[in-house]
């Protein structure tokens, strides 16, 4: 533990594996340009299912990022998480064996769908061939804790390790959890989420979500905040951050890319989107309180943007409920409209986009959305230049969680 600590959680590393970019720089380029990569699903065995459109991670060669010993015992969702963690550690200047005690680095991930493709393969062996055909890695590849465990082992990180198995909002909760670990004395936490929900059986499992868009045309499948909103489309991928105490980061001469200033979470019931208005507003107020941030200081909002009329209305109203008149004036964006909702990975991708937006002074657009039917200033068509010092990131989960997180640019407290 360090002698002097600021109590502030700094983001010093970002790693991304997303449908619209396999690296952080490629992701930002697509986000800034408002590129949509939503497309027909091409994963093996999925073509006949009534879920047609998603954000697939294409061209990802796991073996380029991860050693064979880890590859064989892990699902695609852990491949994404391990690749993103490696990139985040590189970015933070902590790759290789970091100096200091192994207990000073923890790992936290959020997971909402587990190792579905690996699990389906082993289920097929069990039921198609017999129990003795189930492989030795099923017990460690399918479960929600796989990515945290493997990142910990691969990096030699023995600090506090955790897993929030959650709906989408758990992605923000995980980052807050990591921040609390830092405040309790852990130097560094590798925190993130990545999902791979596009295996055939995993897709069947999602068909019951009432908010799922089963549109066949990628151009109209996911259009949040429009009068033709018809639900969300799922996505693969996610992001991992390196967070650490701000003073410690400064002492080791690492650039502080952003500061996690505040977070709060509430619960208002599965698919009770009318009630999510109050839940989200309270989460925003809680996050602002913890950050010591006035509503007018929020320079950009990364919206949850679920994409059903009722949920979008609740979110738009929650912004005004929590931010007052500023709620209709602050720029709002939803880059995920261009690549889908990666469950717990979604909020991490939003955090990554928010940090990059603040660094570049540009609010990225909401791809494919033009006809907004809510009283918010949704940024569309092209990125909008702006001085961005504080960002608000929102997330709601299909099981009823609401969360808000306030990020400050660089070292601002």
């Amino acid at each position: 533990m360090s002698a002097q600590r600021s109590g502030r959680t700094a983001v010093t590393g970002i790693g991304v594996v997303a449908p619209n970019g396999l690296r952080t720089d490629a992701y930002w380029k697509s986000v800034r340009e408002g590129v949509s990569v939503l497309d027909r699903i091409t994963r093996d065995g999925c073509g006949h299912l009534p879920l047609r459109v998603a954000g697939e991670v294409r061209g990802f060669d796991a073996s380029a990022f991860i050693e064979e010993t880890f590859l064989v015992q892990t699902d695609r969702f852990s491949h994404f998480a391990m690749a993103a963690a490696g990139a985040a550690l590189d970015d933070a200047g902590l790759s290789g064996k970091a100096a200091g005690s192994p207990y000073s680095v923890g790992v936290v991930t959020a997971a909402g769908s587990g190792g579905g493709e690996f699990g389906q393969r082993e289920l097929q062996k069990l039921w198609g061939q017999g129990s003795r055909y189930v492989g030795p890695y099923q017990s460690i590849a399918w479960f929600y804790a796989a990515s945290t465990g493997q990142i910990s082992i691969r990096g030699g990180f023995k600090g506090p390790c955790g897993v929030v198995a959650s709906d989408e909002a758990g992605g923000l909760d995980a980052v807050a959890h990591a921040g609390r670990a830092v405040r309790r004395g852990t130097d560094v936490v590798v925190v993130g989420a990545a999902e791979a929900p596009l295996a055939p059986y995993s897709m069947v499992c999602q068909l019951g979500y009432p908010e799922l868009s089963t549109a066949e045309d990628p151009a109209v499948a996911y259009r949040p905040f429009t009068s033709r909103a018809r639900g969300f489309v799922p996505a693969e991928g996610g992001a991992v951050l390196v967070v650490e105490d701000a003073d410690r980061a400064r002492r080791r001469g690492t650039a502080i890319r952003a500061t996690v200033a505040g977070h709060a979470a509430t619960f208002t019931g599965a698919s009770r989107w009318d009630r999510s208005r109050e839940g989200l507003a309270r989460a925003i107020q809680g996050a602002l309180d913890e950050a010591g941030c006035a509503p007018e200081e929020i320079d950009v909002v990364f919206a949850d943007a679920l994409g059903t009329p009722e949920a979008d209305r609740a979110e738009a109203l929650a912004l005004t409920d929590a931010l007052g008149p500023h709620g209709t004036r602050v720029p709002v964006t939803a880059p995920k409209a261009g690549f889908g909702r990666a469950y717990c990975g979604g909020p991490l991708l939003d955090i990554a986009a928010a940090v990059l937006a603040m660094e570049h002074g540009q609010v990225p657009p909401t791809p494919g959305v033009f006809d907004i039917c809510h009283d918010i200033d949704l940024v569309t068509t092209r990125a909008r230049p702006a001085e961005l010092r504080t960002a608000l990131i929102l997330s709601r989960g299909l099981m009823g969680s609401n969360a808000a997180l306030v990020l400050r640019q660089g070292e601002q407290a």
Partner: protein
Amino acid sequence: MTPRRVAVTGIGVVAPGGIGVPAFWDLLSDGRTATRGITLFDPEGLRSRIAAECDFDPRAHGLGPAVTERADRYIQFALVAADEAVSDCGIDLAAENPWRVAVSLGSAVGGTTRLEHDYVLVSAGGKRWDVDHRAAEPQLHLAFSPSTLASVVAERFGAQGPVQTVSTGCTSGLDAVGYAFHTIQDGRADICIAGASDSPISPITMACFDAIKATSPNNDDPAHASRPFDAHRDGFVMGEGAAVLVLEELEHARARGAHVYCEIGGYATFGNAYHMTGLTSEGLEMARAIDSTLDQARVDPTEIDYVNAHGSGTRQNDRHETAAVKRSLGAHAYDTPMSSIKSMVGHSLGAIGAIEVVACVLAMAHQVVPPTANYETPDPECDLDYVPRTARPRKLDNVLSVGSGFGGFQSAVLLTGTGGRTR
């Protein structure tokens, strides 16, 4: 600023051998075992065909068809355990500020039993990769989403504060209690419904532990198959169940004149960064978790009165854990009873950590250490006092519960008696 203190004011349990706290404590204090041949499905062909099953009739515990048609078995367990805990704590939750009521529940494998059931339907018995969605049940998405557990429990009690599901393998239950402790300590809620549930007795889960020979193959003598710390131990016996605790900020509990069982004195978790399923013989990381909880509560190692062991009954676990406790407690380890209730109720993966915390609460309430059933032959590598076969009266002020999980998780929770120190 002094951290807010966290009290345990309610407990509930669904465990093999008896549903509800009285039946559970009877089983533990009698040293009876609830392990038997699997009845929940036909286990033919498996290496380990034994388990500790719950004889669970949801209707007998007030769950109507509206709940049972939607909620998986593990969620039903959690609801029944939560009903008992909330009733026990005496809080009128309807009169509380709902935004200050949190939920933190753990599960290692969540809805996998239902996921497997429907997989068989949509794949025509494992024949096709391109599964047929038309054969799936309409509620399948609730089994797919791990957060269904905390969500359903939160809705039942009107909780609107932070609601989360924790899934750190076999330490899920301890970690869910730990996260709840932090949630109240940090001031994010005043009350937290905390615990864990799992119902993993299914072909896929049994088969995947078969594949790594982690479970006991002693099918001929299931009642004596779970043998933690015994020289002849040969793996764990799968279990199922749930436990829920109501954690409450101490002043909140005092203000309403609540019965306080004990306090959560500390919680810590570390990764071993060693192996997803393997454990070292040194136990360094678990020892560090224990040390951290003692530091938090300012309790000296010599003041620990009982260690509730993970004690799964695998060769490596029991050796690892013995080393960890010796490392943390020093010579006092030899004077400290350490038992494993998995000898009686099996290993219910993510649930067991919470079930063991409830066992510790009851041990303190009764001032009795539950035994390690089936312990007969000492193992030179496991040379502590494992409380063989018979429960033992003892003054219990400070009690530790520890756990290890796949993924390398090593966690510890310290319970401190109400008559103990103030911090």
